[in-house]
């Protein structure tokens, strides 16, 4: 085991006791990146090689010189007896959907490939202020539009460190892959329908989608402004808690960042979970999806291996003294994806109108005779297929003649989904849950190119995660074991508003209780040759 394989908290302790230096830690991460990552994603890249198919490709822009320089500064602070902050000396990666001053901030899109941000997003700023060391920006689905990271304009797109023939999930695929492969300890991702939790599940790491408004969205290139949540990707609940301590809280630059006091997420981790109420809902053990041929809706149980993993976790929690509440109804779960198809598209179309080839970003090289030509060509050449699809759908369902039928109706369905959560977590209600335990995803990581292009099936990969985005509720995904193909299975805990501390506490309890399990010994396949 190398430095880069330890936890962020262990590294933090070692730095403070001078057992290692920030520079050694950064060099360990860079050495791992050099061994397993392969070439970074670029525009107009050469065709994929056999070698490429064995690498992770998490990065778009790796900044080793800047990371080393910052590590030296952090080491000087430690040497001078100064406190660099709670993330002092911890290398992290940033999903390239966040603006970081003086660096390319691409959203994995050609239309922003040349954009150098003049300011830094609040969550990144806070991680840097807390002493963290950015290693660079990691790849994602273009503008976060996808669940596999394959739609990036920067190819090769990321691959799953446990099996590089599989996707890492998305859209925070580069974040989850970089943390899972030991390239970084932490990553800043975003979750609009499951984009932190689903890749965390696929890559065998921890991903926390905070309550909407818990972490500022300032500097996040927007997708669905009522749904987007920045949050941590880490290898343990404790590391995610360490990161949440840095990034959570109100922000004068974001009116939706809630003025709710931020607890110390690390302080409560080891509290006893005895008496906590954990619910199970049959509505999270089946998925409903449209048949590609007939259009009829099919209902299917989640695979046995995934269900069995959740039920094993139930026994772990029961043994720790938690109360298990079965048959909690969440009947509107199945409407999460159809409502999302409407709401997110309307918001995406609105947010993407700003990209026009005029103020910043890509402008067509061809001669445009008038302004509208310039718009059409710049947007036509600059956007990939997935942004175009979202713009067109958003415009259709919000058009005056369809708005009541689709958009307005979807917003009302969202109220129903929210009510499911309110009922389950109502402290005076029938269920009084502290958390709902579910599978994170209806499948484990699927093969590269397996469903890419089928925008409907791809969206249904988020069926168990998207309700929390509609509701604004927090959710965490954490490893629960492996399927028979050796792929990670993610467990999800959903909680009431601003209950991140309890979700982290429950996750930490599960990690401790299963620390000696055989499956914990397994390492990502890309590390076998390291």
């Amino acid at each position, binding site marked *: 085991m190398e430095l880069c394989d330890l936890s962020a908290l262990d590294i933090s302790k070692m730095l403070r006791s001078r057992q290692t230096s920030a520079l050694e830690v950064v060099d360990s991460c860079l050495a791992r990146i050099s061994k397993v990552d392969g070439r970074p994603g670029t525009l107009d890249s050469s065709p994929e090689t056999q070698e490429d198919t064995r690498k992770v490709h998490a990065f778009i822009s790796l900044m080793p010189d800047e990371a080393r320089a910052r590590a030296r500064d952090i080491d000087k602070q430690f040497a001078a007896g100064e406190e660099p902050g709670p993330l002092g000396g911890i290398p992290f990666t940033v999903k390239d959907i966040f603006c970081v001053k003086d660096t390319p901030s691409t959203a994995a899109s050609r239309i922003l490939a040349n*954009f150098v941000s*003049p300011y830094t997003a609040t969550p990144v700023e806070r991680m840097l202020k807390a002493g963290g060391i950015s290693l660079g920006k990691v790849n994602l689905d273009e503008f976060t539009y996808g669940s596999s990271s394959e739609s990036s304009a920067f190819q090769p797109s990321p691959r799953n460190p446990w099996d590089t023939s599989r996707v890492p999930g998305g859209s925070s695929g580069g974040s989850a892959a970089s943390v899972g492969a030991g390239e970084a300890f932490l990553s800043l991702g975003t979750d609009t329908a499951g984009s932190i939790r689903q890749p965390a599940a696929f890559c065998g790491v921890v991903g926390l989608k905070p*309550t*909407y*408004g818990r972490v500022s969205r300032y500097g996040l290139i927007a997708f669905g402004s*009522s749904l987007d949540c920045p949050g941590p990707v880490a290898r343990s609940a404790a590391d995610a808690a360490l990161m949440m301590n840095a990034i959570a809280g109100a922000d*004068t630059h974001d009116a*939706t960042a*809630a*003025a709710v006091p931020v607890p110390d997420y690390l302080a409560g981790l080891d509290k006893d979970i005895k008496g906590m109420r954990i619910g199970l809902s049959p509505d999270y053990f089946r998925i409903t999806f*449209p048949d*590609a041929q007939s*259009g009829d*809706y099919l209902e299917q149980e989640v695979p046995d291996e995934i269900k069995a993993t959740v039920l094993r976790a139930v026994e772990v929690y029961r043994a720790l003294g938690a109360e298990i509440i079965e048959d909690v109804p969440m009947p509107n779960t*199945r*409407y999460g*994806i*159809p409502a999302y*198809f*409407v709401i997110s598209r309307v918001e995406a179309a609105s947010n993407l109108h700003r990209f*026009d*080839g*005029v*103020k*910043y*970003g*890509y*402008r067509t090289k061809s001669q*445009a005779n*008038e*302004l*509208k*030509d*310039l718009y*059409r*060509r710049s*947007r*036509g*050449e600059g956007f990939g297929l997935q942004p*175009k*699809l979202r713009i*067109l*759908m958003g*415009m*259709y369902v919000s058009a005056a003649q369809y708005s009541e*039928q*689709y958009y*307005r*109706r*979807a*917003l*009302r*369905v969202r*109220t129903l989904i929210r009510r499911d*959560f309110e009922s389950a977590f109502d402290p005076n209600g029938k269920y009084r849950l502290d958390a709902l335990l579910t599978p994170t995803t209806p499948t484990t990581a699927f093969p590269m190119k397996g469903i890419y292009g089928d925008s*409907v099936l791809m*969206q249904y990969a988020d069926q168990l995660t998207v309700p929390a*985005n509609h509701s*604004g*509720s927090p959710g965490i995904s954490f490893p629960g074991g492996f399927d028979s193909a050796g792929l990670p299975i993610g467990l999800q805990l959903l909680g009431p508003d601003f209950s991140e501390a309890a979700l982290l506490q429950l996750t930490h309890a599960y990690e401790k209780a299963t620390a000696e399990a055989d499956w914990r010994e397994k390492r990502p396949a890309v590390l076998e040759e390291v």
Partner: protein
Amino acid sequence: MPEPKEDITPDVFDHLVQLAALELDGSQADYLRQELNKQLASIRELEAIKLDENLPAASHGVPYPPNHKPALREDEWETCPEAKAITAQAPQFEDGYIIVPDIPHTTLE
């Protein structure tokens, strides 16, 4: 098997493309129209839900009671220290102006 219903016909699609200010080649248009219709088929599931007429719309999930809302800043203008860094991003910028092609005169109806 009957052909699935296509609400987004080629004409509707072309209108959307114009509104969206996108230039597409033929293969992109075929793919996008097909996917739009597939997504619309999924969206139609919403129409089958019985909604109480008093059910309100939710623009976002988490409520914002007054004590959760951050205080508004004073309404005072501030100089943007990064103005040059921002204008430097414009594809064509000369003498303090962002340059664009001709903007034809249009009469609003």
